């Protein structure tokens, strides 16, 4: 079971942007795409730990601000040919409110990211 915590409204997050949720175990980046999809990843690039929340969001990807690695928002995987994975967190949207479960989603991801 996920422990859903309300972290704010969809409008609190800029479209094509992200906000940070502070937790005792470290920051979680909550992203909002152009199409109002919401994703949550550990705010640490698998490359050198850059804060992904500060990157430019395009499509379902974010470009890390430090060295321009691209990370798939839906899987947390680095866009090929880079290799690496940022941990994913369950996140959902209900009546314009964003709920986050600060428990890491299964790290293993089947198949390749689209």
């Amino acid at each position, binding site marked *: 079971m996920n422990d859903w915590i309300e972290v704010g409204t969809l409008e609190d997050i800029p479209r094509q942007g992200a906000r*940070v949720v502070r937790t005792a175990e470290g920051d979680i980046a909550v992203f909002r795409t152009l199409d109002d999809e919401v994703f949550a990843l550990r705010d640490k690039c698998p490359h050198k730990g850059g804060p992904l929340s500060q990157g430019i969001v395009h499509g379902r990807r974010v470009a890390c601000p430090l060295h*321009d690695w691209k990370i798939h928002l839906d899987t947390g995987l680095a866009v090929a040919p880079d290799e690496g994975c940022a941990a994913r967190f369950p996140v959902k949207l209900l009546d314009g409110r964003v709920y986050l479960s600060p428990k890491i989603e299964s790290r293993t991801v089947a198949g390749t990211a689209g």
Partner: protein
Amino acid sequence: MLVGNGMAGMRTLEELLKLAPDKYAITVFGAEPHPNYNRILLSPVLTGEKQFSEIVLNDDAWYAEHGITLHKGKAVIEINRRSRSVRAADGTTAAYDRLLLATGSSPFLLPVPGNNLPGVIGFRDFADVETMLLAAREYRHAVVIGGGLLGLEAANGLMKQGMKVTVVHLPDALMERQLDAPAAKMLKKSLEDRGLEFVLKGVTKEIIGKNRVHGVALEDGREFTADLVVMAVGIRPNIELAKKAGLYCERGVVVSDTLQTYDPSIYAVGECVQHRKQTYGLVAPLFEQAKVCANHLAHFGISRYEGSMTSTKLKVTGIDLFSAGNFTGNDQTEEIVLQDAGAGVYKKVVLKDNRIQGAVMYGDTMDGAWYFQLMRDGTDVSGMRNKLLFGQAHLGDSGHGDIKSRVSSMSDSTEICGCNGVCKGVIVKTITDKKLFTLDEVRAHTKASSSCGSCTGLVEALLASTLGGDYSTTPKKKPMCPCTEHSHDDVRLAIRSQSLKTIPAVFRALEWKTPDGCNKCRPALNFYLLVAWPGEYADDNQSRFINERAHANIQKDGTYSVIPRIWGGETTPAQLRSLAEIAEKYQVPTVHITGGQRIDFLGIPKETLPAMWGDLSQAGFVSGHAYGKAIRTVKTCVGKTWCRFGTQDSTALGIELEKMTWGSWTPHKFKLAVSGCPRNCAEATIKDFGVVCVDSGYELHVGGNGGVKVRATDFLCAVKTPEEVKEYCAAFLQVYREEAHYLERTAPWVERVGLTYVKQRVAEDAAGRKKLAERFWYSQTFAQVDPWAARAKGADRHEFIPLKQIA
């Protein structure tokens, strides 16, 4: 359906798979019994420098992985356009919706008696190479008919395999299509020194032999023993299949700019096609065609093939030879020639109106790619004519000279990319293993040249040396990013001519391939719109890089640096005191003096920024924009107020310039300096815009750079008054803002458009200069709002605080 499993056809499929992986169920027919291989590298296979397995581009597993049905060793003999199907020699048939013909070309066989004897072959495919290798083991004498590119590569290979080779060539000079007389002579001599024999003006009369070739007889009565005859007198596009199907053909299958034949469901690419009266036999044009063709097959329909300029290099190890364009010249062209027979070096560049039309080089071809680039870009070379033939290394970019010889002499462990720590060996291995062709691919796979870009030349040189130099470096019209086919210039033009005023409007009008662009195109578009519509365009924060979004410079640990503006680098004890107090109040871990005469606070957490800015604002400081593609600093010396050599008040002028220019967004960062005398203590001659004060007034310099690639400024002109300095500065900034590509510093921009052009716009055209300056000043009325003060008062609050804190 693809007929022809060669380089052009397969490249088209690869491009198509990138654009629309699921659009078609693909079937490929290939007459040869091999998977797709790199035909260009057959020469090294013949000489024994490479194995066949090393030149395979796509192995069987690749076809399977992409769900492509491959019919190897099945030549298609009939196309039925009515039923849209093809039939192979063995009876296999298959239907198509779209057919791509890439049937390539065949060696032209001289119509002389005996041309069908065993032992008479062309030099085209791997089977020919196998025949040659076999012959070299069993026999001794070979005759190559044709002293062109292919003939000489074949002759060299056979000689390497131990045969005694005579080359019979009809014209009176070797490679007459690629070389002029002096270069051809040098080539002939060095090949003779290696042991090849040549018969020029040799007209072949007959191939002698009964069961196998035995010799070659010439019209003049001479005879040469030959156990193997290689005909390399030219290639003929394979058009029989297309002709039989009723497609319109001349020398090749005639195609339009979209690579369509006269039957719109049939496309054609490669050596079999004729486009705008031209046929091509080199690889670079084929790749350009492949890209365009794939675009149309994927139904994007936005690119056109407009013909290619080509260059040639001979792949004979130890012989350097390069030619491109019109290298013979005519009565409207000029030539610059360097000839050193002793050193075996010959270079000729043909110019028309100070633009390169063609080049021939022998012995020293290091700068071939550079000349070719200048030629394709139509660069005005008037500023470098006197150094042109000495090469790019002599243009004054210190520390970067003589690239090609540097990379070849480097060991595998030499670091090429200092930003990402990538060594030569890794790059070469990745190029070979992953079969990379382009700079972008090398960047993606190795990261080399993907950060500051200063090693781009080295990486390109490695690509050229690893691949053999046939590959085109950059296409003439480079798309902005993978989201579009349009170049920076096209996009800027469209923004103005179609009155596009938002990023989504640009995406719609120019049919962007992605719904919301990427982190390359969006910041560029945001800037272009800002420049085109000052006061009107609403800046899109989400399309800005974090530094410009947060108005501070992100550091490796996610904290930020804060650099307030210190006008002209002149400060006061009171200012320094307030800076010290603020630094203490926020416990700034590091305070650093920058190269631009400012003070840098490092290690500031993002949430602290607005409060710190509030305090700085109170103390009279504004943002220094040290984080932006924007006006950075105006560095000054103390000038005549104190200095015994000073000629003008350089500090006051620097402050005035900074007050005029601050807040402006530019294509890339922009630095200024004012030095009080020609001793130039403010280092004005490595700035984007530098002023050197002299007794009679002010010398203006542009396009300098002290960073990645050191470049001294070009002298623009001299003026008399500070007012003129400001007007010229504003005008220069505005042309740069309006016309340079995003992320292009003034140094490469000035080199690209030519100093002559910049002089014309800024120095010579007085009315135009005034208009430019007015446009700059107008845009400044909207730009000079301190972003720090606004954020200290609460603007963009969400940017600086967490969404939520969970205990």
